[in-house]
């Protein structure tokens, strides 16, 4: 049975989904394809969705090619490249009659759909290596977008520059073969893709969330990282390890997360500026160390990359389920700050900011990200690589130095061993001004007050939330972290004159400037990628304000733009 193809026209914004088994090389295609689109002058972003396995299954990556920067996850698939037999079934709910479905001729069994078959494996086999089917796909896709085979070959040559000449030539041949099939597809679907090219985009960078976090840390002065690998936080560890010599930073893979945070605290004590990067389960092991940071008034920066729990949960997927964990972890009472970037730029800026904040107020500071945000890649015009540090550098100690001296400001100047003439003593037991153990009730009370006062001090530098959408709104969406892009895009699509969006880059201490914005709305909608509505709980506890509606998602996937439109405006 053959189905007559319908004519396909796409404007401004095309969603391409690549699907293949783990280990099939989808990531390599994604990376090169992004460079091809960028050098053609298109905005491009990629969102990954993958299984917790090294081989098999179906992994997908959604690449959005557009005339303006859009990076949110879309349900809609315009072009599907299904390299493995299970791929179509894996994404079947996201296909429409308009979707162009490209399948691998050799492995495709399904009938009854309008598909375009390409002998990816056969061509690769002829050229001598099954992995070349990925390069065939590159050539094919370029043709659909009106990008010449030559432009692709330039990118392939530069991406494979370190490979042997023979391999590079075979890849170039693969591009050409794929490109020719792509022209056939254009012909068959009478395909038109209209996306304005902008030459300025060629100069933009392609950056991921984890790269932004790592670079932000360096700009913040991070010079020590101890961590234990755990998805989705590992990218930061890997990136900094690979550049440790250039940055002059100590990077160590600890035996466990307990060691990692205790190393971090040792480093701060000796004058380093330490980061730990981990996910929920690993951070759970750091709880006692977090409490130690509170007790010894040590700065500490914790990158907590969320994934769905409890326990091992969905290791490679996304969720915002650890806000309460960050808020309440650690025994005893001590202040902390929780930063919640929602864009790659904010991941960079806030990670840098976290170091100054931690150092200035001698508190642990969290950067709460998640798998979706860290694995996001996108074109970006610029990163603000400037030192915006609000740090108090370690002081040169006097002979009578006391680490926990009571001061007017509430902050004790932080000395380190080997810099000055004083003695620097820190103790996890309750201690007196000199850092020695005490059980004197009055000293204990004064030390608790001194530590707790830093919560008020943190409010001096709290980051105000940012308002988007209608100025004169009746309804207000509030959200934190990685839901930012999908919410903003939904808002821009609907152009609802009554709707605004308040984006929180810091949730704790709670920014009091948010209160009038929230009170002004007749209806408040809180959107979170978790089941419990943790942020609306925080809002109620901190301000007494309640939200009218919660939109929650906890199946391991990020919000898509379409489902937010449906749920916010209650369509269907």
């Amino acid at each position, binding site marked *: 049975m053959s189905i007559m193809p319908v004519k396909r026209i796409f404007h401004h914004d095309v969603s391409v989904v690549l699907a293949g088994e783990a280990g099939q090389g989808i990531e390599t295609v994604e990376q090169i394809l992004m460079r091809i689109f960028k050098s053609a002058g298109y905005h491009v972003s990629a969102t990954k969705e993958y299984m917790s396995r090294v081989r098999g299954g179906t992994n997908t990556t959604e690449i959005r090619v557009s005339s303006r920067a859009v990076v949110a996850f879309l349900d809609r698939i315009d072009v599907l490249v299904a390299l493995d037999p299970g791929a179509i079934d894996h994404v079947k709910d996201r296909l429409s009659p308009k979707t162009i479905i490209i399948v691998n001729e050799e492995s495709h069994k399904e009938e009854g759909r309008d598909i375009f078959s390409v002998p990816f494996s056969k061509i690769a086999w002829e050229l001598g290596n099954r992995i070349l089917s990925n390069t065939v796909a590159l050539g094919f896709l370029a043709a659909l977008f009106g990008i010449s085979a030559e432009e692709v070959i330039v990118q392939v040559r530069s991406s494979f520059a370190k490979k042997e000449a023979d391999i590079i030539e075979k890849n170039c041949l693969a591009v050409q073969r794929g490109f020719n099939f792509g022209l056939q597809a254009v012909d068959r679907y009478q395909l038109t893709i209209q996306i304005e090219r902008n030459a300025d985009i060629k100069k933009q960078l392609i950056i991921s969330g984890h790269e932004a976090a790592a670079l932000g840390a360096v700009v913040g002065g991070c010079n020590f990282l101890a961590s234990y690998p755990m998805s989705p936080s590992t990218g930061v560890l890997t990136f900094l390890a690979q550049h440790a010599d250039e940055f002059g930073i100590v*990077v160590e893979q600890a035996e466990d997360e307990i*060691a990692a945070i205790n190393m971090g*605290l040792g*480093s701060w004590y*000796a004058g380093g500026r330490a980061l730990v990067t981990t996910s929920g389960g690993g951070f759970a092991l750091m709880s006692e160390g977090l409490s130690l940071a509170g007790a010894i008034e040590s700065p500490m920066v914790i990158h907590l990359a969320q994934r769905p729990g409890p326990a091992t949960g969905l290791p490679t997927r996304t969720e915002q389920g650890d806000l309460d964990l960050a808020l309440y972890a650690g025994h005893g009472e001590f202040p902390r700050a929780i930063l919640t970037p929602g864009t790659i730029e904010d991941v960079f800026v806030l990670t840098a900011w976290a170091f100054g904040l931690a150092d200035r107020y001698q508190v642990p500071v969290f950067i709460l990200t998640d798998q979706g945000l860290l694995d996001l890649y996108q074109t970006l015009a610029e990163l603000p690589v400037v030192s915006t540090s609000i740090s108090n550098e370690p002081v040169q100690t006097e002979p009578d130095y006391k680490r926990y001296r009571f001061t007017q400001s509430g902050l004790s100047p932080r000395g380190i061993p*080997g810099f000055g003439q004083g*003695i620097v003593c820190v103790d996890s037991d309750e201690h007196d001004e000199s850092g020695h153990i005490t059980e004197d009730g009055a000293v204990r009370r004064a030390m608790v007050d001194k530590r707790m006062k830093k919560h008020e001090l943190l409010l001096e530098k709290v980051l105000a939330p940012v308002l988007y959408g209608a100025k004169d709104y009746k309804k207000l969406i509030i959200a934190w972290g990685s839901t930012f892009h999908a919410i903003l895009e939904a808002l821009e699509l609907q152009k609802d004159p009554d709707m605004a969006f308040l984006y929180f880059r810091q949730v704790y201490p709670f920014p009091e400037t948010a209160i009038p914005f929230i009170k002004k709305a007749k209806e408040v909608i809180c959107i979170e990628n978790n089941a419990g509505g943790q942020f609306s709980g925080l809002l109620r506890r901190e301000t007494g304000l309640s939200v009218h509606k919660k939109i929650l998602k906890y199946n391991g996937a990020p919000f898509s733009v379409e489902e937010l439109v449906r749920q916010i405006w209650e369509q269907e």
Partner: protein
Amino acid sequence: MSGKAFDFPQAEISWCAGCGNFGILNLLKDILAEVVADPQRFVLVSGIGQAAKLPQYVRAHYFNGLHGRALPSATAIKASNPSLTVVVTSGEGDMYGEGGNHFIHTIRRNPDITNIVHNNMVYGLTKGQASPTSARDFKTPVQVNGVILEPFNPLAVAIALDASFVARVFMGFKDHFREIVKKAILHKGYALVDVFQPCVTFNKINTYQWFRDRTYFLDDSHDTHNRMQAFERAIETGRFPLGIFYQQTGKPVFEDQLAAYQQDKAPLFQRKPNLEAVNRIVDKMRH
């Protein structure tokens, strides 16, 4: 030599009268006065327990952290400022029990730190339960019918992991203690000194006299560079050998091998963020 530079007369010591920790404290202060050229560059690190309170009673920089976690912190202190001399002093529960995983991996890392473990074969601060090194059949309020676990053998574990310096002393033999601990501090690399020490309150078995009767000194016939021989000495149980079991000179130390110190020897606190390198990497992302 007197320990004046490290004396801290204000100390309110919370150990029992007759505790072996007093001897260790006094001997250690003497040794430090002799071997530490610059007290400003000397740091004591400990965990939690009676032994871990020792830094409180010394005039020195200290980091008294969490139970079992002294070694990771000490490793990072040394790695963040390699010009510091770092000595970890804590009990066997802290080092071999709660911190067992760190003990293993710190040996593998081989930072240039000294690890003095007060080993009295019982828990003092929590009042008399078995410790990892308590002998079989040792009765306690928890191990009511006696310990049924094999005692942890720190020296055998350290030698198995090819630690760069492994020694045992008894705090009652002062001259020997002085000699060995001094060598341990001067040794470049991770140095373990397991210190036999009586607990006069909770351990009525392993007393001063018990340690005197059941120990002997390794003599010149023992080759400290022979790992097999060292292991044989380490698993002796009838009478426990004292001295240096095993040592290696020239084994690469952790902090010297870190990428951070290949171009630049400055401690971390003297460094500024390398924004040029960040810009270089950002520029590469444009291609």
